[in-house]
């Protein structure tokens, strides 16, 4: 089976994010970069699918030179090869431009199933998998916690508010992963050694026949609105402190 997993390099979840003084983006100095956690679930499912049905996993990623590290991480986990799209026109691109670049790269290679994370934890936009599916003319099943493939049929579990859906679709398709789908493996030391020799093609938008077209922009970034300092209820008696909080919630906050 020809399997594709799309990954994005993002700041580590612990990273302190500071907005540039002019609001044009974030300060990138000092940030530790990692694979977006939901993409890890996608890569893991891609590898499990390969282990079950045979075939190859191709990693596709967009980003500056440092992104290569994340591609290598996925190769070290067990993927066969990579495509790294490195073009300044696509750094911090919007979802439509990002998906267009991924689609252009994936059109050129055989693909039976494509995995994405349900969202990348930097821009948190959560659109790319679905747009990619649309641009490739494939069905999409998003935000899933279980996948079973049989022949050319895929069955997936998708939790919704108050229920779970069992959804069936046909391959080729795009799947987006969420927590619960699997436990991503760690790259082993031999895996890391092997990954260094695995092929990764580096491409520019033009190599993919792509003119980058953004449909939305971040006009300005700002730090989150400051929250007024909270009140710590003083005292030794749990009952008195509890009664005071209930009073405040009723009279001051008016939420109960």
């Amino acid at each position, binding site marked *: 089976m020809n399997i594709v997993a799309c990954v994005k390099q993002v700041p580590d979840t612990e990273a302190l994010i500071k907005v540039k003084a002019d609001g044009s983006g974030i300060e990138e100095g000092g940030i530790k970069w990692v694979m977006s956690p939901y993409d890890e679930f996608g890569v893991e499912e891609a590898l499990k699918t390969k282990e079950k049905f045979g075939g190859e996993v191709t990693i596709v990623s967009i980003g500056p030179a440092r992104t290569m590290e994340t591609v290598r991480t996925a190769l070290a986990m067990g993927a066969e090869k990579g495509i790294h799209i490195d073009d300044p026109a696509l750094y911090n691109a919007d979802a439509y431009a990002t*998906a267009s670049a991924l689609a252009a790269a994936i059109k050129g290679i055989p693909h039976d199933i494509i995995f994405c994370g349900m969202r990348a934890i930097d821009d948190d936009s959560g659109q790319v998998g679905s747009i990619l599916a649309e641009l490739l003319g494939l*069905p999409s099943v998003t935000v899933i916690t279980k996948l079973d493939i049989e022949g050319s049929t895929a069955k997936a579990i998708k939790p919704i508010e108050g229920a779970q859906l069992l959804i069936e679709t046909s391959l080729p398709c795009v799947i987006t992963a969420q927590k619960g789908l699997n436990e991503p493996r760690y790259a082993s030391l031999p895996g890391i050694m092997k990954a260094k020799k695995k092929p990764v093609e580096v491409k520019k938008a033009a190599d993919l026949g792509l003119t980058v077209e953004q449909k939305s922009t971040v006009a300005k970034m700002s730090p989150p609105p400051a929250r007024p300092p909270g009140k*710590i209820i003083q005292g030794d008696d749990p009952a008195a402190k509890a009664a005071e909080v209930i009073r405040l919630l009723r009279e001051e906050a008016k939420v109960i």
Partner: protein
Amino acid sequence: MAKGVWIVAEQRDGALRKISFEIASTARKLADELGDEVCAVLLGSGVEAMAAELAKYGVDKVFVADDAALEPYTTDAHAAAVAKVVKENDPAILLLGASVQGKDLSSRLVGKLATGMASDCTDIKIEGGKLLATRPMYSGKTFGDIVVSGTPQMASLRPNVFPAVENAKAGEVVKFDAGLDAGALKTKVLEVQKDASGKIDLTEADVIVSGGRGMKGPEGYSVLEELAGLLGGTVGASRAAVDAGWRPQSDQVGQTGKVVSPNLYIACGISGAIQHLAGMSSSKYIVAINKDPEAPIFARADYGIVDDLFKVVPELTAAAKKIL
């Protein structure tokens, strides 16, 4: 020229979801500023009667497609139907809910309509005749103001953030043909497994009482259930509690769980790790109960109690019983 503020209403099992009224009310506000009308797209089988309810929240016209292939929701059927009616009518703005279904549908529509979208917004306004949407980025560590250059300008709205305001309008029904070829649809819902508990979903709850590793085990949650029940809310959990197997994944709040915006979030025995804050910092009021005065959750809380949660929570329940 593109004109009008459109929404896609969300219904399930014969009833509109609360998010539909939130987006209708928000659309009304934007349309009044622009001097435009609000149109809703309503899809399903036997759904026409729901149009009247949308009208109550400020919808001028309801475009209804009644087709068995639209029930239950599938991505391809709904995206095709919405794209068709949107292309025929060319609205300036298209709003959806950032519910599970709304996120799926809106993203697919961005592809179909070749436009841009600000997803999971917490604020939205008109500036210079254009939509300006504000949304948390980097898990709420920053906020971005988004401008959409494509048409329609799309945004999805975070549930529970925008008020639903009654403001009756005509709600004139316009029927349209979804134009679906049922045989060409590639996704099918085989089964809907309802949660037996009948629990309010975290993303829709007004009050959440959440427990973390400090709960010590699954048994501890009964005191949280009691308080949540009394306040008309539901129970959530930190990842530590979910990973320990005390609570189901659907209860997890945070970066790799649900993003919630209740009026009141009570965090019990939760330290307030950055990944947990990512899921609940847009709550309107936050109460923290933790025995460690240094726990980072206190920096985000409106009200804090430094004490043993097993002593405090039953007292909260007792005190709440007296006034409710």
